């Protein structure tokens, strides 16, 4: 199918392009930019006047909940939500049930994702068997046969530091990136809110900042020793980011992301026990949020991601600490990122880069660009559309969002996956 995207503002940071031009797509690929190829006849023309055309978004941390937790979401429901959000590649952490420590689980995910046909799905393999933090998983096989893009222990930190060292050494020799959820389990002490005045006022079990900084510090030492390529996921504290920045400057092979909600919410937003604000790592202080935004400005944060965790309503219907942590974040990733552009924290090119090219690079994927002959994974959005977030209207099976009633700007109008229109807004 031949598609012409007409007169959109095309932003492609990888190629340093920001220009209004036409995009020609055939056989799933971008075949020409601005110049009509001879004999090209569009089967479909998308009028992108006043719209922005960017590479499809690559989201580093998305839980699809399948296999094992289908009551919260399925590969079909969540990839449809991704498509509706301009996201064309999602990276799945290994904490499905069973977890991703065999190729069989990856095959199941791949098959269902292919059947749904809405979004590319790549997987992180379990770092340790059953995510138990004891034995190494068959990560070389998972890489070669199942094309896992990295290893991670999900949200279960490896407590035994010797196991962590060995796992990093082994991952390094497999050439795999390790994705880290930096949390010292002892210091976190089963908490559910950032330790500070708010946790004190509400009497909630608290997670101190040191639960993150102590873990980052430990992991940085091991990364230096083992030489593994590492990515720090959803950093929430200003001090941890500072430590990572320093280590980066010293040449350590590391990258870092924050989930978009940590750039918009703080512990105060919990109000009187709003369970939609229950996330791990917890929403931190104003000072932390300011530090993360400052870091973003200074290009210290490589990637913005949704840290999507859809839940069924029951998971959030209990006293705060008894609820399950997580936000259904796919559908707010782009509008909340645009908010950072609108309030001049970052410019549009930087935003696009941190949503597309940078995460693709970390995953080692040939994606996140609008280069000639690359796969036509494309997101088209109207940056000026005002809308009000309402979790109940989410495409995702998870309606759990603390952003309901937020006035946001920017709405995806079309999403293309390998040159097919997988999402189109209803007018």
């Amino acid at each position: 199918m031949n598609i012409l995207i007409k007169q959109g503002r095309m932003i492609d940071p990888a190629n340093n392009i920001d220009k209004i031009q036409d995009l020609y797509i055939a056989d799933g690929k971008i075949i020409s930019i601005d110049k009509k190829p001879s004999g090209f006849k569009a089967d479909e023309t998308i009028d992108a006047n006043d719209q922005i055309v960017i590479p499809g978004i690559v989201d580093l941390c998305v839980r699809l909940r399948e296999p094992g937790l289908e009551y919260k979401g399925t590969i079909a429901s969540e990839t449809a939500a991704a498509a509706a959000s301009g996201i064309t590649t999602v990276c799945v952490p290994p904490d499905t049930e069973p977890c991703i420590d065999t190729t069989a689980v990856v095959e199941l995910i791949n098959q269902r994702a292919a059947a749904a046909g809405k979004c590319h799905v790549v997987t992180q393999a379990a770092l340790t068997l059953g995510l138990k933090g004891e034995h190494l998983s068959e990560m070389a096989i998972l890489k070669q046969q199942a094309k896992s893009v990295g290893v991670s222990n999900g949200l279960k930190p490896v407590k035994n530091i010797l196991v962590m060292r060995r796992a990093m050494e082994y991952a390094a020799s497999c050439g795999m990136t390790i994705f880290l959820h930096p949390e010292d389990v002892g210091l976190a002490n089963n908490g559910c809110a950032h330790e500070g005045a708010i946790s004190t006022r509400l009497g909630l079990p608290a997670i101190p900042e040191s639960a993150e900084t102590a873990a980052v510090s430990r992991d940085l030492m091991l990364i230096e020793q083992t030489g593994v390529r590492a990515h720090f996921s959803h950093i929430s504290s200003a001090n941890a980011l500072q430590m990572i920045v320093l280590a980066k400057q010293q040449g350590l092979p590391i990258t870092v992301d924050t989930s978009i909600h940590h750039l918009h919410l703080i512990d105060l937003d919990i109000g009187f026990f709003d369970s939609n604000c229950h996330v791990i790592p917890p929403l931190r202080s104003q000072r932390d949020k300011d530090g993360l935004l400052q870091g973003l400005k200074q290009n210290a944060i490589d990637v913005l991601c949704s840290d999507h965790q859809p839940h069924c309503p029951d998971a959030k219907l209990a006293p705060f600490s008894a609820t399950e942590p997580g936000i259904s974040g796919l559908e707010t990733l782009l509008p909340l990122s645009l908010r950072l552009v609108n309030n001049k924290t970052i410019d549009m090119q930087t935003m696009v880069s941190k949503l597309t090219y940078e995460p693709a690079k970390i995953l080692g994927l040939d994606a996140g660009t609008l280069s000639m002959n690359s796969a036509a994974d494309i997101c088209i959005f109207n940056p000026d559309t005002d809308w009000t977030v309402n979790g109940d209207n989410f495409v995702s099976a998870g309606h759990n969002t603390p952003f309901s009633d937020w006035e946001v700007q920017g709405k995806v109008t079309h999403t293309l996956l390998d040159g097919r229109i997988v999402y189109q807004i209803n007018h």
Partner: protein
Amino acid sequence: MKQTDIQFDQNGQLRHFLTIDGLKRSVLTEILDTAENFATVGTQQVKKVPLLRGKTIINLFFEASTRTRTTFELAAKRLSADVLNINIDTSSTSKGESLLDMLRNLEAMHCDMFVVRHNLSGAAHFIAQHVSPHISVINAGDGQHAHPTQAMLDMFTIRRHKKDFTKLRVAIIGDIMHSRVARSQIHALNTLGVPEIRAIAPNTLIPPGTDELGIHVYHDMEEGLKDVDVVMMLRLQRERMSGALLPSEHEYFNTYGITSEKLKLAKPDAILMHPGPINRGVEIESAVADGPQSVILEQVTNGIAVRMAIMSMTLGRQASTEVDS
């Protein structure tokens, strides 16, 4: 919409009593004044007023309690309400019935008020958010968050002895970190205008963010007790000894236990309070607990009048709105 609004109905009247955090001084004063009117009911021949006749109150206790539950029960009965006590082993909620399902079932039995105690912070707010519009919820203690009726009976007791809150120096001693009582006391004392609130405890029992709470931290009893008007002891739960919070009961009593010797550091007319149950020899010496400055049993008696006041204000409101419509 402000979250604290949940405690008030559309007419701005107190509907639930969940926390003191966010309540105005006038509301607290109204509770204290109303309680003053009820204080004599218990001393009369007929210990009953017909204010809540025909109302059904359910004491929903997910955590063991003798004093609080009994005084709530007595308060309700003296107001002529029908009372049902339900003690729920928290394990029964893990049998599969969610807290919300349990509430729906109890609501179906047509009750007017839940008095709730729960081991998780925010449980009372959660219940208040999900009950039918005609039902009131009173927090009888949720996790480490709040125990507002306890704090109000403490304020009532202080006012009876000290009259003017704005001239007081108050010391709270013990496990402030894990205490819902302390949190509610601090909010109440601040709201009523107490200029100096001290917290005396080792750092392991002091929560973070004390500046925002408006308290001054002391680690030394001699310094902290100097010239205070009110000494408020907290109960030290024995399980606190099992972690790395404190070395031993022996050391705790030695350092932070109140003795007649230490009480002398406070003003001569200082009163000594404790929410109970007391651990003799752990946080309090027997001679002091039973001594002339102790108002511990008065607190228990006052608890009934204060709870009558809060119940009648929240439920009585509904009686009047029903007449109106």
